[in-house]
């Protein structure tokens, strides 16, 4: 699906820098128990993200129309917490084996979809869309623009998840 990346023969300066950090040492030394724990937390985090943002998006798209979207929006901080867990665990993953991510097409696709999801979040909160949706009473249909944003959100986060899951299959061989 994705092209395989070539890894340089010698580690680049950025990689040497990552490998000199405390985080790198910490992950490498505790990998046996830490790595599976971090992965489990990463999966919990993504579930919380989907739980809250997914429910909200589906309501905007018209499922559970009897819910005023503003009421459902109260769950969003839980999703942001899940996202924060995933950023932190993600930084630890990258610190441990930087070249496994950097020279990995799935990683860059994941980043691309995260950027799309991020721009989409900005498009929702920085335009009139959020105010329009928040004011909707129970039973009301959301405006088309909000539905477009909700659909993009579901698609982009699903793509982030899939690319994340595919990371394993596009890793360069362990060299350094």
């Amino acid at each position: 699906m994705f092209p395989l990346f070539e890894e340089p023969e010698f580690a680049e300066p950025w990689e040497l820098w990552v490998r000199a950090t405390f985080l790198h040492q910490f992950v490498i030394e505790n990998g046996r128990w830490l790595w599976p724990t971090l992965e489990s937390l990463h999966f919990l985090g993504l579930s919380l993200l989907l739980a809250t943002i997914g429910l909200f998006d589906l309501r905007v798209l018209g499922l559970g129309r009897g819910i005023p979207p503003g009421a459902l929006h109260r769950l969003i901080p839980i999703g942001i917490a899940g996202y924060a867990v995933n950023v932190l665990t993600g930084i630890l993953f990258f610190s441990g084996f930087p070249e496994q991510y950097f020279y990995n097409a799935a990683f860059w696709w994941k980043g691309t979809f995260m950027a799309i999801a991020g721009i989409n979040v900005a498009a929702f909160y920085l335009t009139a869309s959020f105010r329009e949706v928040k004011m909707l009473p129970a039973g009301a249909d959301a405006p088309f623009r909000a539905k477009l944003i909700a659909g993009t959100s579901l698609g982009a986060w699903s793509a982030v998840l899939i690319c994340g899951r595919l990371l394993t299959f596009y890793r360069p061989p362990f060299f350094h």
Partner: protein
Amino acid sequence: MTPLEAGFDWIENTSLSMWVRGESMFAFPLILSAHTLGMGFLAGTSAGIDLRVLGLANRVPMSELAKFYPVMWLALAVNFTSGTLLLIGYPYKAFTNPLFYVKLTLIAVAVYLLVRIRREILLQAEPAETVLRRGRSLAMVSLACWVGVIFAGRLLAYTYSWLLVGMPNNF
């Protein structure tokens, strides 16, 4: 080879099993992606409903949350199918790992709680305080089960002692 091992050996040698284990990006990697996506939507949506039952976002009418159940049943169907395919690919790997049975048990409990929460809490017109209190207990156990399912599922990749019949881990 015991009869049980012979059975697993037979499954491992079917063309479907070999396809799942094979090089195709549309086999193991995509089945795994579907399984993770299904997990996110099933555990995630269920957790969202649990949070509402626990009192968060309490202006959300509970009966409306019953409408999200088809999303979870779809996700469960996707995960049953993708999980079965993964099992066909590596039957011995999963069935010889005690943690796999822990995961299956926790999923069964979580799905049972999902049904109970819908019937006993979400669809009650004017739930009494005792009902709401029971709902909070069910929601807490539901959340704990999903955390357990996710940890157990993730740890399966690290705790198996056999990969295929006759092939120990780290062979």
